[in-house]
């Protein structure tokens, strides 16, 4: 991916940026020696007059009210190399130590399963004992939890029942500590990110302190949860993206460093979206930034072949790499969870037949007369052939036959011989006979004893061009109408060359002998009298060939029960495709997610809506609130939250104001380039905040306050960025360090003040009543709870 000529070009003058500098500098009227633009750019002496894309924005600087400030006193070395100096390593190490101290202090204090440890601790244990489960979140973060449990020596037997005391053999402290390490890394990452975004050192330290001293981020880093990995990967994405931007702006294109940061961005994107779907917001953020970057390159007239290489590099790193990571996580997920579990039914029957211990995994392979079978439609959705004692309100007024997606005793059908033989045979003693292609069978409902039949006389209730299919006892109907012919369409397992009907692998049609119509499941749902189940009809013979081939007339035996035929291991015969399973499980995750909808009329102590997060209106009790228990309260550092909210709201308003100023050519920015530097560094922070926050307004599902934490991370960094921006220009940066020190100290004091909630409070909550700054905080009493 590094063609020779690109390397050349990279070395000789990193195309875009230098051109940008030349264009913006009025005094230079000759191209820089060594850089050859003539092939693709406008000569500089003309650029200012006709094409100038980067003009001076303030037309009359002498009249501008705010005189341009000299930043040189505080500006950083903005070269490619040397951004990290030796003291940075010391600072990073110190911050890491402080972070370790705040996160790990008394981490094992509450010896009970706390908050969502009940879920995620349990899911982690599932990877150890291999039981398949279904959950709304992608697997990576849960597998990291599992890793922590493995290292802590857990054998997968403890199931993390909510509130239960940890038994002796579960080293929960070590588990919490390992997961907390992801949260610990957030603080040094914040520092490194800010350095890349051109903050001064003291303000970068301040940004890290903001993250360090936020109570909510701290308390969420202290349990076995998914939030720590999620936040860590989000921060990693931001750091890589910021670093990549810096390299791509000031360094060589397609250099090794350039590739490392780009691939790193893609990798962390993959990780963040494999942790929780909230990570998709990071993907959108990087996506927009990339499009913006490429568009700017396009406008700067870089040569087409360079442009194409830039595109390729991004497609590979930012689309393929994350996708590979995402898919790989699911691949590992499926490999680890090989045993049947509670999540099996969310996936296809083929998948279930592969899972150890599933009832589809162990059943007779050949279907014999007298078997009790569950018959599934090949048409996706409606499910299994079903009947119940309720009757059709019209038509024949006989017992309904429908399709029902869930496991139920009413799904079981006995397969008998056709004609009189069926009713006369005693299938417990008669010799075993297997059903083969072309056989005529009766299909008898196991519970009610009624047989499936149809007739030309009655039309289906919803699809009136088809016949009605109903079940009737022998007294209700002529015997001849109960016969169906089995027509095999496909044998999925090719190695056994017989014409028998096999469980799971034989696809067949059921043709009614008398009328010649085909059993079909409708796309329509029956009304309330049919319990909203899918309509089953008989497709008349006269309809075209196309209909006969469609999947709604195709069926297979999903479960085959016959005590006289020995059971087989079905996983030998069926094949299940990993990619199909993965797509399906993602669809199911989306469905489960959407099903988590709150009742607007119910007050819930835990839930909160996004508009309340900004100003920390409803902090959350994480555990039971008894007077003697150890209580954790998910409350942020209010000063930091409020300041962040103000800064984030203020930022776009100021941009609009600046845009108006620029439009009127009275901007305080000396050149567009100077503004673009500001914009490039802050766009990730505000954009990240907005993209991780605003979409929640459109979510119908249940939301909790910690859904705001990724956005908060961006917001805290933006807060430091804005302080840096302000104090760099105010009085020529004289108060920069002082401001950083004071803000950091304030954050620290407030953090300490609220730390009882973070490190656990084992006395009555009433004693902390003074810390209730807002009336909506339920520190000791609840406003709405009854």
């Amino acid at each position, binding site marked *: 991916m590094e063609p020779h000529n690109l390397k050349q070009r990279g070395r000789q003058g990193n195309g875009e940026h230098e051109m940008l500098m030349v264009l913006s500098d009025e005094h230079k009227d000759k191209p820089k020696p060594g850089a050859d633009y003539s092939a693709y750019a406008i000569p500089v002496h003309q650029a200012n007059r006709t*094409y100038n894309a980067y003009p001076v924005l303030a037309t009359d600087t002498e009249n501008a009210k705010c005189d341009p400030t000299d930043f040189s006193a505080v500006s950083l070395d903005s070269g490619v190399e040397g951004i990290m100096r030796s003291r940075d390593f010391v600072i990073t190490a110190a911050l890491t130590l402080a972070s370790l101290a705040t996160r790990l202090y008394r981490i094992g204090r509450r010896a009970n399963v706390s908050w969502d440890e009940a879920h995620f601790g349990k899911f982690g244990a599932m990877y150890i004992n291999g039981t398949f489960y279904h959950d709304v979140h992608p697997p990576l973060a849960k597998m990291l939890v599992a890793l922590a449990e493995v290292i802590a020596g857990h054998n997968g037997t403890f199931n993390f029942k909510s509130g239960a005391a940890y038994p002796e053999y579960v080293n929960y402290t070590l588990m919490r500590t390992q997961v907390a390490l992801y949260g610990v890394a957030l603080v040094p990452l914040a520092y490194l990110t800010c350095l890349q975004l051109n903050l001064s050192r003291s303000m970068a330290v301040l940004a890290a302190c903001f993250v360090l001293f936020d109570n909510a981020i701290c308390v969420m880093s202290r349990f076995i949860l998914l939030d720590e990995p999620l936040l860590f990967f989000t921060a990693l994405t931001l750091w890589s993206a910021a670093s990549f931007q810096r390299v791509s702006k000031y360094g060589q294109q397609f250099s090794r460093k350039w590739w490392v940061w780009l691939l790193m961005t893609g990798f962390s994107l993959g990780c963040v979206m494999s942790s929780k779907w909230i990570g998709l917001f990071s993907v959108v953020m990087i996506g927009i930034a990339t499009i913006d970057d490429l568009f700017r390159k396009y406008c700067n007239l870089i040569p087409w072949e360079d442009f194409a290489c830039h595109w390729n590099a991004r497609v590979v790193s930012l689309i393929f790499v994350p996708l590979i990571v995402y898919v790989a996580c699911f691949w590992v997920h499926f490999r680890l969870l090989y045993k049947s579990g509670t999540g099996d039914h969310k996936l296809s029957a083929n998948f279930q037949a592969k899972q150890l211990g599933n009832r589809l995994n162990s059943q007779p392979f050949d279907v014999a007369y007298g078997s009790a079978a569950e018959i599934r439609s090949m048409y996706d959705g409606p499910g299994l052939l079903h009947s119940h004692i309720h009757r059709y309100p019209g038509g024949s007024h006989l017992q309904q036959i429908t399709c029902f997606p869930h496991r139920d005793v009413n799904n079981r059908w006995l397969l008998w011989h056709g004609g009189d033989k069926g009713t006369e045979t005693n299938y417990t003693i008669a010799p075993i006979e297997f059903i083969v292609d072309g056989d005529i069978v009766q299909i008898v409902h196991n519970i009610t004893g009624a047989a499936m039949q149809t007739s030309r006389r009655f039309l289906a209730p919803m699809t009136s061009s088809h016949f009605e299919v109903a079940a009737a006892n022998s007294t209700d109907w002529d015997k001849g109408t109960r016969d169906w012919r089995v027509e095999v369409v496909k044998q999925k397992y090719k190695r056994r060359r017989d014409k028998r009907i096999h469980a799971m692998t034989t696809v067949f049609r059921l043709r009614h002998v008398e009328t010649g119509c085909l059993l079909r499941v409708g796309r329509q749902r029956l009304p309330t009298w049919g319990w909203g189940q899918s309509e089953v009809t008989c497709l008349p013979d006269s309809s075209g060939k196309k209909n006969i081939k469609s999947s709604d007339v195709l069926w297979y035996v999903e479960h085959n029960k016959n005590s006289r035929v020995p059971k087989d291991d079905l996983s030998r015969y069926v094949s299940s495709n990993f990619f199909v399973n993965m797509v399906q499980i993602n669809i199911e995750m989306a469905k489960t997610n959407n099903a988590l909808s709150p009742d607007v009329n119910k007050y819930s102590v835990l839930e909160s809506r996004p508009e309340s997060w900004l100003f920390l209106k409803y902090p959350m009790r994480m555990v039971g609130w008894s007077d003697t228990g150890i209580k954790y309260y998910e409350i942020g550092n209010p000063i930091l939250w409020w300041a962040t909210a103000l800064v984030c709201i203020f930022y776009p308003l100021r941009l609009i104001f600046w845009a108006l100023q620029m439009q009127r050519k009275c901007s305080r920015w000396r050149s567009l380039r100077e503004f673009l530097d500001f914009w490039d560094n802050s766009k990730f922070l505000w954009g990240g905040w907005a993209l991780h926050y605003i979409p929640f307004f459109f979510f119908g599902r249940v939301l909790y306050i910690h859904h705001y934490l990724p956005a908060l991370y961006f917001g805290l960094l933006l807060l430091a960025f804005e302080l840096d921006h302000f104090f760099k220009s105010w009085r020529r940066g004289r108060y920069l360090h002082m401001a950083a020190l004071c803000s950091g100290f304030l954050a620290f004091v407030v953090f300490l003040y609220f730390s009882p909630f973070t490190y656990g409070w084992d006395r009555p909550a009433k004693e902390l009543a003074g810390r209730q700054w807002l009336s909506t905080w339920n520190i000791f009493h609840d406003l709405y709870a009854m």
Partner: protein
Amino acid sequence: MTVEMSQAAEQGHRPKGHSMSSRGKKSVPQVSKGDHPATGDSKAGAVEIERFVPEPAYFARWQVSSSDWMLLLFVSVVALVVRCYRLGVPANVVFDEVHFGKFAGRYLNQTYFFDLHPPLAKMMFALAGKLAGYDGIFDFKSIGLDYHAAGVPYVGMRLMPAVLGALTVPLTYATSRACGYKPDTSLMASLLVCVENGLVTQSRLMLLDSPLVFFTVATVFCWTMFWTLQDRAFSAKWWLWLAMTGAMMGCAMSCKWVALFLIPLIGLSTVHDLWDKIADRTLSFSGWALHFGARALALIALPLAVYIGWFWVHFSVLHKHGPDAIALTPEFQAALDGGPQVTTSRDVFYGSEIRMRTTNARSGYLHSHLHPWKHKEGSGQQQVTIYSFADANNLWTIEPAYNTTIDQSQGPVPVRSGDVLRLRHKATGRFLHSHNKRPALSTDKHKFEISGYGFANFSGDSNDDFRLEILDAPEATSLQAISSRFRLIHTNLNCAVYNSRKKLPKWAFGQIEVNCMHNCMPRMSTWHIEHARHPNITSESVPTVSYKPLGLLGKIWEYNRLMAESNENLKGDHPFAARPQAWPWLRRGTAYWGGYGRVIYQLGNPLVWWGALGSLAVFGLLWFVLAILDKRRVFLQLGGQRRQYFSSAGFFTLAWLCHYLPFFLMPRELFLHHYFPALWMAIMVLAFSLDLFTCRLSPPLRMAIYVAVAACVLHAFHTFSYITFARVWTKDACLKAKWLSTWDIDCEHAIGGLKATVQSASANSTAAGSLLASSS
């Protein structure tokens, strides 16, 4: 962001001399010829760069010539003829005339009704009816009723939309001229609108769409005129057209809410304009603010005033209470003549009989009756529901809590917030009761059944106790009828009496479920007392209260909220409903009416629809390609037409987007006619695109192309005129007219079709019958 920046920057470097005033004319670019870029893409591109930096949309002044007046007159007459041709056919109630004819009658009777559309267009029908002599007695009950038999002056009423529909045609001509197009293109635009079968169909009937389209077109026309006067800001004409834009926009919004899409259109256009203006350093900041203020006044305040004004007329006319008014809040009903006037004593005491009503939903009163709960997990005790109508079974008596007494020797004791009390159903003597049983419909674990419980000689139990909590009031505030909003909390289960707004099955008479919900938010568990009377207090002097009748703004607010609600809930299954994705290519039409040998089927002129859609695509493609090429300094000029075409077609494409895309977000039932405002915008783009592609051709060739297009369109118009004007045709002709298989025109109505045969047979027999009757 950055794109804007560089554009802004580019604009900043436009030479000063090339400013606003000269922009209307084709000025010579001021780039000196010596500046050839060494490696520029083409010489032409280099010379005319300056002309193609993005510039504000701007139209040259339209000097109305006498030939313009002649042509305006001509197209008006033609359009009027097309719209009024066979206006009296059919003499039956067609499609939504069922509603709008009826509403016109209601205005004449001055009886309150509710409709989900604002009032202006309906009032215009009422006025037309009044002028034509309609008395408001015929009630347009069902589609197909005969007007002649009822003596309704329906032609006069239909004349109103026909005239408005005809007027859109000269307005189209004028708009196109104002955008700077020549008379031939403008004539083409008005022809396309004139022979658009869909527009014709809807302007021949009593439907709201014709006034809506007229006012929408008028708004756009006024706005275009306003734009031509950019260089004469604050002149009388400038003010006139600006104000007219606002007024027309207000009228359009008062016809149908679809016109709200004019707001983003005019709004974006204004923002664009002001954004350009702020770059003009010759304009002082206060001058800019003046521009801003003028637009805010004319485009925000004025339309709002017009909207409110029409509602004022609406409520002044409809001042009588009618059966439709039951669905309103009591405050609204109290403001209507002949509405129920509730007057009740203000204070509520132990022993008072009360009627309590849900506060935040118009569901009705707490109710009970002598029928048991019949659901599976229920208690089988007496039903307690919410019932919408006043009834003796809504009366309850307040009694002290179980096992407590109140000393009433000093006179009646008032009920206070925080009191624990019981409610005894007056008619059956049972207590309001809740217990750990599931309600009839709600299955959540935190919801409990409410029942009426008790029998003779039984003093009740503690499950009858409810705590009264007056909202937003301190403890021990005394309870007052009408004004106190309160909740009832069951003391044992800690749950609130809650209106679930679910309709119970037949065995509970379809009334509304009420249950007791734990951790309930106040909104649906808030009640107030509408009627209170203590048996021992008979004095006339007790303080009384009644609902405060709503003022005009209150009425408008509630009416609009109701409109929004019913719009949201409009989820019918009309067989001819169509989702937006089917509109632009005219997948199918709407069947309006069928009679002997003929039908009315609203279908557009397919050539116009498809042409319009194609031209939108062409514009989009051109815009995208040119924008991308500009960034690489490749400037194409489209034969010198670029600015003209982009500012005019660009505006109308934006208009089309504003009038089309929002429909995708609407879950309510939609029809083809919702597309008409957008269609008009697209037709304008079609005419402009025709002009663009023929402008460099020789005049005779251009004329030939125009004539050919006109001929094709007229031919299509003629083909579909049968279903537009309800002309008699044969089944063969009908089948032939089905250009697309998805067009479900009912050919059985045509001569030779099944229904026509049946009808003619029955018509003959009835004719024979009446002949016999008269002869005997």
